[in-house]
């Protein structure tokens, strides 16, 4: 049979067919029909910005987390240099450098270079100042050194009110600590799926912090002083890891090292009081000014090693198992200070050892499985074991309570309460949990969970606690948004509360037999809340709703209550109520606005017992107090493209208004607490931000900004002289109140 189309028709077809796409192009669009000739417009991936700012007040509070703390000009320099080989060049190099300077107390910089998918290396520097207060005062000389001295014209007294030369000798202290961190990392991908990562960092913390040291006992004797503690900490950290990511198996093995070094072991503080010891202690007459002093021990250097193995395996598309195993060793072996540095006080008892030789071993295991037995059901289960085994040696220490506290020396074993064993606390934690999630409808998911927490504690009043938590959560999404509600109930109980256990374990048997009354340092009916029986209820919910295409609402609410009704004394109840609302508006990207409001109320109810007599069950000695914190937070922000591509304006405002009130509730001491109530604590900050960006050219922008902040704190714990009460040489710290203005002007160049 002859082919129906003669060859010359095929030739004609061959001539016609290629023209058809071109003809189809005419008058209607065909995606990809014609290759793009011109590339997309240039994209600015890098910039640098330089400018100057000015702040009109000195305030440690306004710059307490790395902001400017001094009045005057401040330099602004920022920049990012970011680039990579063109996507289709066949190269995969990437590079990035970034710097951020806002006043020279706050500097961060980073560089990174590598070949994507092969390797990369980076380094960084980060520095900022944590400013506490510049309102502190001290009469001590040598702040920052390990030995402080009193001025030569110091007039001593039995109480701080008698320090007649105090006012003339007070000088200001800037309590702040500089944090400086430098580090780097290298990541190598030697072959597909594998990654080797090594990192290291060194951090310096240097400065002054407020600290206190006690010299004597209370009961109206001279007690303590405020002084400036030198901070000279170094932290060195290093990590190395090998990881594999495959289609079904992923794992990571890593080692982490952390070394904390403190070059200053103690601060010697002179005793400004003139109360000497009585006759119980040989040399006691020399325990007062000008001969007396005390050593405050600073945090000891320590080291920690951790080996960590983590992994996940996809058994099947519906079944996945995970695991993590970690072993950590923490050590501390700094030489002990003497019981007292005052050699004139006779302390014949030797130290049992020259250093602690402290060792803590932490074992950690987590196992988990997640499965999807059906398209609408997923389940997960997990087990966690965490053990802190403190194997520091236990020894008997004949300690000195305070250098101006009468103690009969030499100590008589069996009769003296100042002979104690140290208790190296250990903990073991186990958790079992299970979750079931069900898609009850196409876009609605119900999750039911159970968690069992089991804790064991060594040397504490409660050796074992167990807590069972049940949770339910319903989440639904709909066209205009989503909503969810959740409820949790938990019940905790524990073994018998043995209030005397820590006391008994830390004293010698001969002492306990000789002093049967002092079986516990606390009232036997007091229950420490982290170990006490507890019932917990928590209800939460949230909704995200698109009111209009341009207007979005988010709202969440939380109610949580912890009930410690089995605790006769101690924390009785805590309650938290929190409501958050957020409104976002976007009009074609020319105008975006957000507004938020948050309300939170936190309440703690505490019951106590006025001790001091043998009677432990006198109702007249019971008392209760309620601590209530209420916080209102609100803010709004508007960003407006006033002139498209040329002028952008931004306005932002927020207020944080937090207060704390403590009041008596139904106690025998309510009369005292009501006739002499504690003032409310209140901390209010108003902050306004204005910014303007004017594009002079496509790649050049002039920027201007203004910040106004008004802050007031009313806090009854501060605002007194340096001798606020007879038994205390204080700091004179007052609460911050200010109005501050910050303006800045900069120019930014994009490239």
């Amino acid at each position, binding site marked *: 049979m002859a082919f*129906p*189309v003669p060859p010359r*028709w095929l030739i004609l077809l061959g001539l016609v067919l290629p023209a*058809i796409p071109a003809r*189809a192009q005419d008058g209607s669009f*065909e*995606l990809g029909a014609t*290759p793009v000739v011109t590339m997309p417009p240039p*994209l600015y991936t890098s910039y640098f910005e330089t400018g100057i700012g000015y702040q009109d007040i000195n305030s440690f509070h306004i710059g307490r*987390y*790395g902001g400017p703390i001094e009045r005057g000009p401040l330099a602004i320099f920022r920049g990012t240099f970011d680039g*990579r080989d063109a*996507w*289709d*060049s066949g190269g*995969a190099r990437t590079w990035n450098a970034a710097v951020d300077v806002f006043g020279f107390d706050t500097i961060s910089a980073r560089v990174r270079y590598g070949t994507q998918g092969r390797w990369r290396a980076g380094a960084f520097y980060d520095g900022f100042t944590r400013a506490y207060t510049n309102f502190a005062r001290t009469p001590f000389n040598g702040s920052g050194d390990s030995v402080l001295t009193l001025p030569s014209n110091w007039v001593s007294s039995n109480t701080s009110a008698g320090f007649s030369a105090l006012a003339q000798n007070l000088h200001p202290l800037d309590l702040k600590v500089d944090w400086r961190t430098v580090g780097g990392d290298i990541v190598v991908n030697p072959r597909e799926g594998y990654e080797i990562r090594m990192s290291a960092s060194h951090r310096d913390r240097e400065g002054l912090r*407020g600290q*206190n040291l*006690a010299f004597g006992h209370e009961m109206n004797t001279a007690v*303590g002083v*405020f002084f400036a503690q030198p901070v000279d900490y170094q932290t060195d950290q290093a990590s190395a890891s090998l*990881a594999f990511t495959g289609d079904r198996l992923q794992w990571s093995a890593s080692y982490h090292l*952390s070394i904390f070094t*403190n070059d200053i072991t103690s601060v010697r503080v002179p005793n400004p009081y003139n109360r000497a010891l009585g006759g119980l202690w040989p040399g006691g007459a020399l325990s007062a000014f000008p001969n007396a002093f005390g*050593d*405050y021990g600073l945090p*000891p250097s320590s080291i920690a090693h951790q080996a*960590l193995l983590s992994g996940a395996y996809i058994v099947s598309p519906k079944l996945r198992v*995970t695991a993590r195993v970690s072993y950590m060793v*923490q050590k501390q072996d700094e030489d*002990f*200070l003497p019981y*007292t540095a005052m050699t004139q006080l006779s302390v014949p008892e030797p130290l049992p050892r020259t250093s602690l030789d402290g060792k803590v071993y932490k074992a950690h295991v987590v196992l*988990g499985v*997640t499965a999807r037995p059906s398209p609408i059901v997923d389940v997960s289960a*997990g087990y966690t074991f965490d053990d802190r085994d*403190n194997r520091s040696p236990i020894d008997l220490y004949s*300690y000195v309570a305070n250098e101006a506290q009468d103690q009969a020396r030499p100590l008589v074993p069996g009769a003296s309460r100042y002979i104690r064993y140290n208790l190296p*606390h250990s903990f073991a934690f186990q958790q079992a949990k299970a979750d079931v999630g069900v898609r009850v409808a196409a876009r609605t998911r119900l999750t039911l969970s159970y968690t069992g927490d089991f804790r064991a504690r060594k040397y504490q009043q409660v050796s074992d606690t167990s807590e069972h938590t049940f949770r339910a959560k319903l989440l639904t999404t709909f066209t205009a948004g989503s909503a969810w509600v959740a409820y949790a109930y938990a019940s905790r109980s524990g073994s018998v509360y043995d209030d005397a256990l820590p006391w008994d374990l830390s004293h010698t048997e001969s002492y306990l037999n000789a002093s049967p009354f002092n079986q516990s*340092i606390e*009232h036997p009916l007091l229950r420490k*809340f982290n170990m006490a029986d507890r019932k917990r209820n928590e209800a939460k919910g949230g909704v995200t709703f698109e009111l209009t295409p341009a207007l979005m609402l988010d709202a969440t609410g939380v109610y949580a209550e912890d009930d410690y009704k089995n605790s006769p004394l101690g924390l009785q109840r805590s309650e938290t109520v929190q409501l*958050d609302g*957020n409104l976002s508006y976007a009009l074609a990207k020319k105008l975006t606005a957000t507004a*938020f409001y*948050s309300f939170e109320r936190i309440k*703690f109810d505490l019951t*106590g017992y006025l001790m001091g007599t043998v009677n432990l069950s006198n109702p007249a000695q019971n008392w209760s*107090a309620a601590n209530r914190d209420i916080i209102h*937070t609100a803010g709004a922000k508007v960003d407006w493209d006033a002139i498209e591509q040329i002028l952008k304006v931004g306005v932002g405002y*927020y207020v944080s208004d937090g207060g*704390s009130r403590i009041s008596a509730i139904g106690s025998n*001491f309510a009369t*005292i607490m009501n006739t002499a109530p504690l003032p409310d604590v209140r*901390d209010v900050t108003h902050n306004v931000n204005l910014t303007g960006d004017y594009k002079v050219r496509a790649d050049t922008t002039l920027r201007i900004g203004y910040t106004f902040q008004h802050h007031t704190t009313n806090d*009854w714990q501060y605002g*007194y002289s340096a001798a*606020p*009460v007879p038994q205390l040489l*204080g700091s004179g710290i007052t609460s911050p109140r200010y109005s501050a203005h910050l303006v800045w002007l900069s120019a930014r160049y994009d490239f």
Partner: protein
Amino acid sequence: MVLWRALFLIGALFAAPVAAQEERALGNASDPSGCMNCHDQPAVTSVLHTAHMVKADARTGVADQGCQSCHGDSRDHVARLRGEQVRPPPSVVFSGPHASPVEKRNETCAGCHQGGTAMHWQGSLHQSSDIACTNCHKSHIVQDPVLVKTTQAPICFSCHADKRAAALKPSHHPVLEGRMSCSDCHNPHGSLTQTMLRGTTVNDTCLTCHDEKRGPFLWEHPPVQEQCTICHTPHGTVQASLLKQRTPFLCQNCHDSSTHNSQPFSGASLPGGTSPSKQMVLRACLNCHSAVHGSNHPSGVRLSR
């Protein structure tokens, strides 16, 4: 015969565009410029300057599939429209009114992003709450804001509004100030530790920065070693030093000593009151018991030195 030839030619004329269109839809799969005929906005084309579009990195898939490596085959999206037909969206859409279901979007990302920090994504708090990767991440932007310390927090706060309120409280970690980010403590992609913390425990996370409290100490304060959050709330508090309650009342929850500190404190205990007490002003109990996190001094049994 002529009729057969005519019919054949006519059929070829109609078939050619379809064939050519099929060829055009798939033939340029490795070249994003085809998609950018329409999608030429800087917000889209900037993807060419990101890690997702690197031909030389075989992991990205762009060498073989171009934009389809993430947005799927999208055959219907690239096909020629007929009559008044509305152009269907791509196979996988990550944002906007035509966004694909969360599971489908996340499946696309998880196709490459497994292991590492995302190893425990499955079953994580975010995954089980139907959070999409694109709720936080912007893959077309050169500098993803959630990966930058100074711009990450507002993204987290868009859902965790309570944490924004906490960050504005008088005592807080310096997140809003840009000195640290939420991801310094938390792994938002999932972790085997509670609340997706990076460390193996709460304390191990805190001790990464606050290692002067690691010890072990000769004299320990047990709640410190058990869990920092027994006394502290890390996101923000009205009280100083991130404490849940103000001293001395916080301490009185657990300590009702036979020697002192067992009385109810009131305004009478303040300077100028009838019984001013050192246990109320300044640091309250810490005016004496200042080594509250533990002491290594042989005489520090009461955490006073």
